[in-house]
Every structure is written in structure tokens, then in C-alpha cells.
């Protein structure tokens, strides 16, 4: 069983070829580290840069332009600056708990992220639910961070984060059920294989209820992980970061990276569930599979998946930049009173559609 699950890694590592003699767990570790360093961190840098540049365009500003050509090295400069800062205050045990939980959520979620048909480490019948675990752990960590401050904003920030997470997770789960109803399973491979390259075969266009489910899924993810424009609990400009207001240096960079990572993996999952996953056109993947060019196939699939993910993230950024931020009580109100009923309606409709197809 273990070796079967590791097969994609072994295929990957065999194509590197000088590492064929090492045990399976080392293969897995290497694959995770390389995914982290080659996919997640560069994506974070790229998205931070694009976010800053595009929001500068929307506000008739110039944006970062000093570090490198057109400011392309700005994320690196930011990181180096944050790493240089030294801690001045003793950290409490609560903050250490936050730190460990946050780090755990950041690194362990990689194993369950669907990054292509060749990169599915955990492909079980409930793997689509695992990201919720990660989102909840991230939110738990953020709440602990808020409670670790001995201040009113910190406590309120922690409670706000908890309220937002609870409000967002219900519609998100129901929307996920809608996809499961269509695909008949919660395996990443089956969820992806019920779609194809053409947008008309993607889940979110398969019927109106799936479209509603897609909108609900994305928006409830924004509520769940407190991503702009629905980041009333932790917004930077209005309440000075809320729970993160006392963080700086390395901890702040870790916190910011966690926020990006939540947004990123939620977008990836939305793309896999609703927007055609990593499906390539014209039987490219079958051809490459027949020629055993697994590494090339995995890379192409990853690039295509990431392109769609970035597109979705930039769309959300666009909406966030032109709309005013909502208060946290308005956000939870919205999640319970609008997203939840719509997700339930979508579930009922999607079930009827699935049943209709089964009888036809």
C-alpha cells in the first residue's frame, strides 16, 4: 500500500536517477522538500509581487520598482529585511503553541495537496476533506496567536478569527459535497477525471447548481481563511493586522506566509474541484504516459494547474482591491445567511441532477 502511494515519487526520483538507492521515506521527504522549495515558495513570491503591482495599478501608483528590474526582487528583499530583525520581547508559551501549530499546518499540508496526476501522495476516498483540516488548523493557530497577546485587540482578534472560521467551514463543506455528488467519490484522481480540458466539461459549468457551489466554495474559503476582501478579522489597514499586530521579524514573515499559503492551497483545491484540475488537451497526458516521460508530464500538469490557480487568485485580488472591506460581523452574517442557504440549495440541485443522469 505504502509503495503504491509512493509510486509517483519513485517515478519522479528515478527520472533524477542518481537517487535510486535510497529508501521510500527519504524519497517522500525529498519530494516534499523539493515541492516546497520549487513550487510553494516561488509561487508565494510571484503572487506577492503581482498582487502589489496590480493593486498599485488599480490605485494609479507605481508599486515596487527599486529591487531588480520593475521591482521583481521585492519579495526577496522583504524576506531578507524581515529575517534581519531581531526579537526584542520574550515570547509566551501561547505564542510558542501558535508557532508550532502554524508551522505544522504549513508543512504537513503539502503531502495532501493535489499538484497533478503524478503528484498525489494521499489519494484516499476522503482526501478532498483533508484540506479542511489544514484550514482549521491554520485558523486554530491564528486564534491562539490572538489569545497569546495580553491585550484587548488580541483577544477580540482571536475570537473574530474563530467566528469567521466556523461561519466559513459549513458552506465550504456543503459545497464540497456537491462536487462529490457529481464525481461519485472524494478521491483527487476521480474528482479530476470527471472533468476534461475544455471548460464546458469543468464541474462548475456542468449545471447551474455546480456553478453556485463553485461560487460558494470560493467565497466560503475567503471567509474560512480570512482572505481579502473578507478579512475583517485580520485586516492590515483597518485594525492593524488584528491578531498579528504585535508580530514582527521572522514570526511576521511566517504568519504572512501562512496567510498566503492558505489562499494558495484553497485556490488550488477550487481549481481541482471545479475548474478542470490539471487536465491537458489532445491526449497529451496519455501520450507522455505511454512514453514514460513522467517527470515532463508532472511538470506540464503542474504548470497548467498553477496557471489556472494564479488566474483565480488574481481575480479574487481584483475583487478585493475595488470593494470595501466588510466588518467581521457582516462577514459571519453573510456566511450563515447567504452562503449556507445557497450551498444547501446547490447540494439539493446537484443531487437531483446527478440522480437525473443516473436514470437517463
Amino acid at each position, binding site marked *: 500500500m505504502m509503495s503504491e502511494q509512493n509510486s509517483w515519487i519513485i517515478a519522479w526520483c528515478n527520472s533524477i536517477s542518481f537517487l535510486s538507492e535510497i529508501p521510500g521515506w527519504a524519497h517522500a521527504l525529498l519530494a516534499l522538500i523539493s515541492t516546497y522549495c520549487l513550487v510553494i515558495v516561488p509561487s508565494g513570491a510571484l503572487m506577492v509581487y503581482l498582487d502589489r503591482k496590480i493593486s498599485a*495599478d*488599480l490605485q494609479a501608483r507605481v508599486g515596487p520598482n527599486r529591487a531588480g528590474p520593475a521591482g521583481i526582487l521585492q519579495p526577496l528583499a522583504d524576506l531578507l529585511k524581515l529575517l534581519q530583525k531581531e526579537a526584542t520581547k520574550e515570547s509566551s508559551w501561547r505564542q510558542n503553541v501558535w508557532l508550532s501549530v502554524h508551522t505544522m499546518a504549513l508543512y504537513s499540508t503539502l503531502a495532501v495537496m493535489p499538484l497533478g496526476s503524478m503528484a498525489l501522495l494521499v489519494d484516499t476516498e476522503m482526501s478532498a476533506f483533508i484540506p479542511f483540516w489544514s484550514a482549521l488548523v491554520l485558523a486554530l493557530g491564528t486564534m491562539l496567536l490572538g489569545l497569546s497577546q495580553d491585550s484587548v485587540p488580541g483577544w477580540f482578534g482571536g475570537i473574530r478569527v474563530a467566528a469567521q472560521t466556523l461561519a466559513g467551514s459549513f458552506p465550504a463543506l456543503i459545497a464540497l459535497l456537491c462536487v462529490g455528488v457529481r464525481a461519485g467519490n472524494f478521491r483527487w484522481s476521480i474528482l479530476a477525471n470527471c472533468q476534461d480540458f475544455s471548460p464546458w466539461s469543468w464541474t462548475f459549468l456542468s449545471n447551474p447548481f455546480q456553478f453556485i457551489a463553485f461560487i460558494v466554495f470560493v467565497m466560503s474559503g475567503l471567509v474560512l481563511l480570512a482572505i481579502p476582501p473578507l478579512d475583517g478579522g485580520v485586516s492590515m489597514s483597518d485594525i492593524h493586522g488584528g491578531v498579528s499586530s504585535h508580530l514582527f521579524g521572522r514570526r511576521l514573515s511566517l504568519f504572512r506566509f501562512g496567510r498566503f499559503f492558505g489562499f494558495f492551497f484553497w485556490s488550488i483545491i477550487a481549481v481541482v474541484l471545479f475548474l478542470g484540475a490539471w487536465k491537458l488537451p489532445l491526449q497529451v497526458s496519455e501520450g507522455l504516459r505511454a512514453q514514460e516521460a513522467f517527470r515532463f508530464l508532472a511538470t506540464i500538469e503542474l504548470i497548467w494547474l498553477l496557471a489556472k490557480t494564479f488566474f483565480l487568485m488574481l481575480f479574487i485580488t481584483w475583487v478585493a482591491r475595488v470593494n470595501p472591506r466588510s466588518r467581521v460581523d457582516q462577514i459571519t452574517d453573510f456566511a450563515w445567511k447567504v452562503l449556507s442557504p445557497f450551498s444547501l440549495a446547490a447540494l439539493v440541485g446537484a443531487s437531483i441532477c446527478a440522480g437525473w443522469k443516473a436514470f437517463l
Partner: protein
Amino acid sequence: MRISVFSNIASYIRSVFRGAWSIAESCTTAFPYILRWGELRKEITEGYPDPVSSKTADDLPPRSRGLLFNDIDRCTGCKECEKICPAQCIRVEEEPGANNSKIWVSVYDVDFSRCIFCGLCVEVCQPASLVHTRQYEGAAYHLTDLIASFGRGQITAEQRASWAALRQMSESDEVTL
């Protein structure tokens, strides 16, 4: 009047769609900025310092207040500027000069790390020796580099003695005349 369940649901759905519509409308406000239509073609923020913006010292408004400059030949050392400075950034020391009509301004320091460029010192300056230049790039790496010295420098004890003698002489001349 009893409101039916259906009209409740209808108004709920209507308000949801109105919200979605308003979000879509506000999204369209971004197009002129992204596509650079009309007035929004150029960025309003100007690059500084690199590339240096289109504004040079000559483009500044006529009464803009840049770094201070004191023409020490015209300065009388009256210390009016030092007295009126709200930031207390001007330090003046003077001594009697070689003749009675001249004052030797030995120290005239302006600490630009404290200066707020209010222009009060320029207003009170009777001989109009203190002026604002149009120079505005005063950044430095050390605080001490921000102190501008316009004074003539300290005089030695011998100079002081000889000048005192000179003054004495001219005074006695006046008396004899």
C-alpha cells in the same frame, strides 16, 4: 398585513442579487486603471529618487522652502532667528569684530535634523541674509552630517586681543576727532 413566505424569499434573493450586482459594478471601475483610459493614462505617483522625477528645482512652486542658506557677509548676528525658531535648531555665537560696525559671527549652525522648514527665521531676518534655497535633497548617513555651518569660525586669543586694540584705537580716534 401578512407578508407571505414567498415574498420574503423573493426579497431575500433580490437583495442577494443586488449585492452581487454592486460588487460586479465596482469591479468594472478597475478597467480604466488597468487599461489606462483617458486621464488615467499616466501614473499620478512620480518616481523618486530613481529615476529622478520630472520635477527639478526649477519646477518647484515660487515660494517653496528648501534648505536654509545664510549669507554670512550680510548677517549681523542679531540672533532673531535663533530666538524665534520653534525647533531650536539654529545656534548663533558672535563676537565683536575688528571695528565697531562689524560683528564677527563665529558660529552659525543649522541642524536640519530638527528643522521643520517653517520659514519663521527667514521672515524675521532683518538684513535678509538668511534665505531658503530651492535645494531639497538633504539626506545624509549620519546625524552630524545634517548640521550646516555658515559661521566664520572661532577666532584665536591673539586675534581677539588685536581686534580689541583696533577697536580701542578707533574709539580713541573718534574721541580725538
